[in-house]
């Protein structure tokens, strides 16, 4: 399996390619007022407004610094093909891994189930983000109240 390597601050996170619909450059986002810091804003894509999650905001409570290597990952979160964007600070490489290589990190947060697993490559420790869990129930409700 292939995974994208997302650099956030000094850490690396892997996101499986299987659920990523597309990777697009960091387009200019329309800020959503009163939204939490984990929501970067929204943009129009193929005639639809797509909400974007800020990975740095989600993980560090700190807005992402947009760089040339920053990307927005598009993720189909439901069967109807509705998309949600994930803004990551730096996405430039991929990584091959097998499911059994995923190890438990040692701490599991039931409220944030997208975290908790790691991949080890030499002396690199890469956090594994479960994309399908990234929409926590409260985030989901707030995002879709916004989009609809």
């Amino acid at each position: 399996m292939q995974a994208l390597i997302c650099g956030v601050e000094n850490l690396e996170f892997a996101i499986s390619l299987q659920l990523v619909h597309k990777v697009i450059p960091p387009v200019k986002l329309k800020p959503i007022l009163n939204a939490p810091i984990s929501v970067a804003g929204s943009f129009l894509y193929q005639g639809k407004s797509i909400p974007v999650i800020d990975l740095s905001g989600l993980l560090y409570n700190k807005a992402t610094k947009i760089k040339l290597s920053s990307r927005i990952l598009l993720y189909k979160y439901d069967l109807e093909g509705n998309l949600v964007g994930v803004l990551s600070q730096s996405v430039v490489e991929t990584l091959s891994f097998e499911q059994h290589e995923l190890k438990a990190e040692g701490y599991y947060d039931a409220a944030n189930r997208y975290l908790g697993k790691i991949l080890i490559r030499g002396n690199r420790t890469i956090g594994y983000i479960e994309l399908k869990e990234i929409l926590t129930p409260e985030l989901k409700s707030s995002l879709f109240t916004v989009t609809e």
Partner: protein
Amino acid sequence: MEKLLKSLVVLFHLTTIRLKLIVGASVFAIPTAILLYYVVSGQNTTIEFSQKEIYGVEVIEKALPVYEFTYQHLHLQLESKRNPAVSSEIPNIQKLIDRSLHQLSMVSEKYENELSLTPDALKSLGFAEFEAGAIKAAWEKLRLSNAKTHEEIIESHQHLLTIMQGYIAYVGDRSNLILDPELHTFYLMDASVVTLPKLVQVLHQGKVMGDTLSNFRINEQSKIQFVGLRSTLANEGIEKLDRNFSIVVKESISMFGTGSRELVDLQMKHNNFIESLREMNSELGKLTETTEKDIDGDKLSGLTLTTLQRINSYYLQTLKTLHYYVTERVDGYKYDRLFALTVSILAILLAYAVMISLATFISKPLAKVTLLAQEIAQGRVDMAKEMLETKTGVFDYLQIVNPETTHRVKDESIKLNLAISAMTLKLEDVLNRIQQAGVEVTSSTNQITSSIRSLEITVTEQASSTSEVSATSLEISKTSEQLAETVGAVTIMAEEASGLAQEGLTNFEHVNAMMFMMSEASIALTDKLEILYQKTANITGVLSTISKLAAQTNLLSLNAAIEAEKAGAHSAGFTVVASEIRKLANQTAVSALEIQTMISEIEETINDGMSYVRNYSESAKDSTNTIQSFARDLNKIIEYTNGLVPGIQTVDQSMNAQVLGAGQISTAMQQLNEAARGTQDSIFDFRTVTQKLNAAVTSLREVLSIFSGK
């Protein structure tokens, strides 16, 4: 009734054929046994019948002396009238009568039930006088009678004689003697019960007459008596007795061959008796025809006495012979009965033995076949075959294979056995083959089905992915071309920068050489440096473009990787290509970053240089060291710029390779797309066929699974 029938049917179901056949044989034996019983009881009746005759003869044998001695008693009493010396013999005769009566009562008591001689039976039949006590009483009365005259004496004896005559007739009736079924014994009986007692009576009367004649003279009345006596003797004695006796002899000889000893004795006694009768009759004839008044009765009396002696002996011999023949007959009947019983029982036993062996012959093969059929019905064909191989029944298993013996068999159960055995073997063989084939086909179809499914999914995904990949590749191709162009421009610019640096260096050398002469030239230098600064600024702009392009390429390669991931294992090659592109893009970005760093350093150096030049311009005199250091700086610039060119050339080459690769990918993807569509169609058809095949094999295996074991 219905319930009884049902339970009977259930009972039929619960018993084996062998048992049924044996029960059937037993049922068949019941009427035979009943028939045998009646035959035997019929024979018993016959034996009893004849036995009664023997009893009768024995009783008559004992009754006869009483009768005879009574007559002798009469004769003695009559004689004692003429000759008193004779009267001394009377007590002897009385003793004989007592003894005879005693013997008679013994024997009559012995057979009183068989011959109805019990007092009750006699009373109810109206023959109370034949009771032993009554006879004895009659005799006591006779003994005590005080008869004086000739007539009184005859009268006193008459009662007992009548009783004894009746007694003999009664016993004859009761003992079935007169119903005797065979001629010789019938006539012997007739003689002993009817003719001989009568003759004895007549002869005694004749003796009485003869005795009378010796005392009285003959008259007309006596003559009439003689005529009657003569005719009786002639009819009853000579004619009838002789005729009957000849029949007895003929019958006996025809039945037993040569006559028995008893018969020979009897014949002799008969002839003697008949001779005496004839003599007596001729004497009687003379007496009736004589005209003399005074006749001698002694001759008649003597003849009568002789005849009486002979008749007694004859009578006893007749009874003896009768006893002998009846006993013989009873023995014959008993022998017949024993023979019939033995033969019948042996026949029944033989029939049983035959029936049981037949039942065994029928049921044994049937039982074997039933076991086989049960095994087959349960689906254990291999068990049935094992039974055939291990157990040997009426026919050995190996003989089934040999057609020489089987076609001669007529027994249906053995034929069935043979057929089922052959069928089992064939069935087992066929099942084995089908099962093997079924297992092979099933595994094949399963493999095919799973392959098709995975192939189908892959092809479907491939088809959708390849089109996107194709589009992506085209984009990459375009982008790469743009990048190549840009890189070309960069190369030119870098070369230009290098040339300018060289020029600058030459100028510095001029400056160095002609320090003083170039105070004005420093202004021009400043201008040149400014141009250089601007050019480097341009390079920075180009580098930023390169960085952006590299970032975009990286992005495209990431998306390509996503599509490749969706396409699955078949696009592994493409993943590698995308990865390679990404690496190139990353290298480009890194190179751009390096160039950026270098350019920054160049800019700093130029700024430094410019400040130096300004200082130089401002200062009247610049130190040579400063210029030298500047020249060194400039050398560095040249080095850096020269180092930049190969990097840019590498980028250029990479870009060209990218363009080429992307074009190839695009073409390959189009071909792949077409091929995938074709494959998809054929896979669909193939899957339909495989599903049908699988369904057929599944049903076949279900059928086969009924026959377990394999």
